[in-house]
């Protein structure tokens, strides 16, 4: 997993609430057995027209946002299916940070496993960031994970919360499984205890 430290990039406004993972990556892209190459399917049903051509009205098709690295979106981003193809598609497109007022649990977890930082902000801060994002390529945001700050184009600064453990893993690009495997003795001990307590399992 790539580290996430400081990201400076164009932020795209996606002014829709309840963006679900079916929207982020439609099911026809889930037949793959790989994690890579899903960027082409990102937001496919909004991004492409029925004949397969690009829909020029969709935000990520506009010249200013084609290289966006940050997404600013409405409430409850990532609801629905657990498909990790959603963060894989975002990452493959080049998006490393999503900002919203709230995220669905599974999507939120999935982001951290893939070097993507999901940031929860207040509705007032989201309005400000949405305003910034509407300015297109002229307005870039800087997301500083170490300092837990989002710095805007006009010198404005918004702070955010993140779990210390998740922050540590993201800053250092750490593999969860490796960390947990170091706790094998504790898992062994738990299994012994559980076997005695619940022998039917």
């Amino acid at each position, binding site marked *: 997993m790539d580290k996430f430290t400081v990201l400076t990039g164009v932020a795209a406004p996606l002014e829709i*609430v*309840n963006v679900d993972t079916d929207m982020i990556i439609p099911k026809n892209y889930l*037949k793959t057995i790989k994690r890579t190459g899903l960027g082409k399917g990102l937001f496919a049903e909004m991004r492409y027209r029925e004949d397969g051509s690009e829909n020029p009205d969709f935000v990520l098709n506009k010249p200013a946002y084609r290289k966006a690295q940050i997404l600013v979106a409405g409430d*409850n981003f990532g609801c629905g299916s657990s498909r990790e193809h959603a963060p894989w598609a975002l990452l493959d497109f080049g998006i490393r940070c999503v900002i919203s007022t709230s995220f669905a649990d*599974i999507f939120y977890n999935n982001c951290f496993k893939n070097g993507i930082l999901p940031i929860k902000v207040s509705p007032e801060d989201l309005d400000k960031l949405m305003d910034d994002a509407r300015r297109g390529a002229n307005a870039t945001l800087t997301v500083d994970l170490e300092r837990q700050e989002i710095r805007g184009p006009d010198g404005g600064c918004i702070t955010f919360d993140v779990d210390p453990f998740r922050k540590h893993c993201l800053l250092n690009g750490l593999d969860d499984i490796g960390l947990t*495997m170091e706790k094998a003795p504790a*898992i062994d001990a738990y299994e012994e205890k559980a076997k005695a307590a619940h*022998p039917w399992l």
Partner: protein
Amino acid sequence: MKARTLYDKIWDDHVVDTQPDGTCLLYIDRHLVHEVTSPQAFEGLRVAGRRVRAPEKTLAVVDHNVPTTDRSKGIDDPESATQVATLAENAREFGVEYYNELDSRQGIVHVVGPEQGFTLPGTTIVCGDSHTSTHGAFGALAHGIGTSEVEHVLATQTLIQKKAKNMRVTVDGALPEGVTAKDIVLAIIGEIGTAGGTGHVIEYAGEAIRALSMEGRMTVCNMSIEGGARAGMVAPDEKTYAYLKDRPKAPKGAAWDEAVRFWDTLRTDEGAFFDSEIRLDAANLPPIVTWGTSPEDVISVTGAVPNPDDIADEVKRQSKWRALEYMGLKPGTKITDITIDRVFIGSCTNGRIEDLRVVAKIVAGKSVNANVNAMIVPGSGLVKLQAEAEGLDKIFRAAGFDWREPGCSMCLAMNADRLAPHERCASTSNRNFEGRQGFKGRTHLVSPAMAAAAAIAGRFVDVRSFG
């Protein structure tokens, strides 16, 4: 000792390790695996030279991507075939029990787990699928995970988690005739909103929940995720035990008795703290139909499509207008004036035997409307066999329904079962998202009874007065 909720008890019982910031390592008792969200996880193990830590606690089955037509001659779609073959190969290589597409035990992973007695009270259950919350009906802590977490569980039999908050949804009273578990859960989601349960585990309680069969409780718990909750659960009782007794993977003999003694302790203590409480009266619930593209967009069958202009928040108002445009509906349209093109009966929400019995009772001796294409997809091979043993398939076929092989089918439309653009469907599944059942397809979520009545009438009708 401090009074604890059911969730608190199961959580406490599974903590392997706690870090100073409250992040825990939680032990996982049961892991269900399917073909769509597992290939990258097994590949990760292979690349890192890791094994599956507890293959006997893992069960694999194909469901999302399999065709629901005759599968005895193989799968036509090459990508689907590859994904199915990959699961078979991974199960063999890593020593995991696997039900293939021709096995009578095959079916939707959340139908199969309970059917086999793999799902048990007091356990932690995960699967790379958000509807894993279904298993909470047995008093288990069950939730969906992503593929990286699937790999983590395969390698370590644990999950890194922070504890969620407790929410209790109490449904008092008795359901009126024609109103079902599906209407209860749609009403709850309408009440709390699609993000109302975010960060919470819901315990469903009250007279109306107790009165539900295990299958009804599964329907309610199944859609917890549609209200944003991490999991939903119902405390186990005699119905739970009666359902599980003698299932293939349930404990037997003295082990069963010992298990039941433990399961009897899985109740929320008097005075335990809930971060939030919701109450509903079942007696007031009507049959419900969704009108929009979020499961929170619910309305009584006797109602009309709402006007988004009544919403104060601008982004929410625009989102609901967008939903109406997508659905091809206008505010004020009576729900019973909406005609349909398709009916889908099935899914992990409503693809079990009791659902099919309800449908059979409504459609027996009648015919599917000439303008409607209606399909029934049993939740598992065993559900299909049971339905056929009861002669339900004959009733369905005589009425003009398409009776198919088990799988997820048009709930998510990964296989060939899907809506054409602008087709309108009465569906017993769980999601009405844009494109969910097919590009530009329009989904209305309803109970099996309402779907059956709609199939006959060609439009939504109030099943309470349908005969």
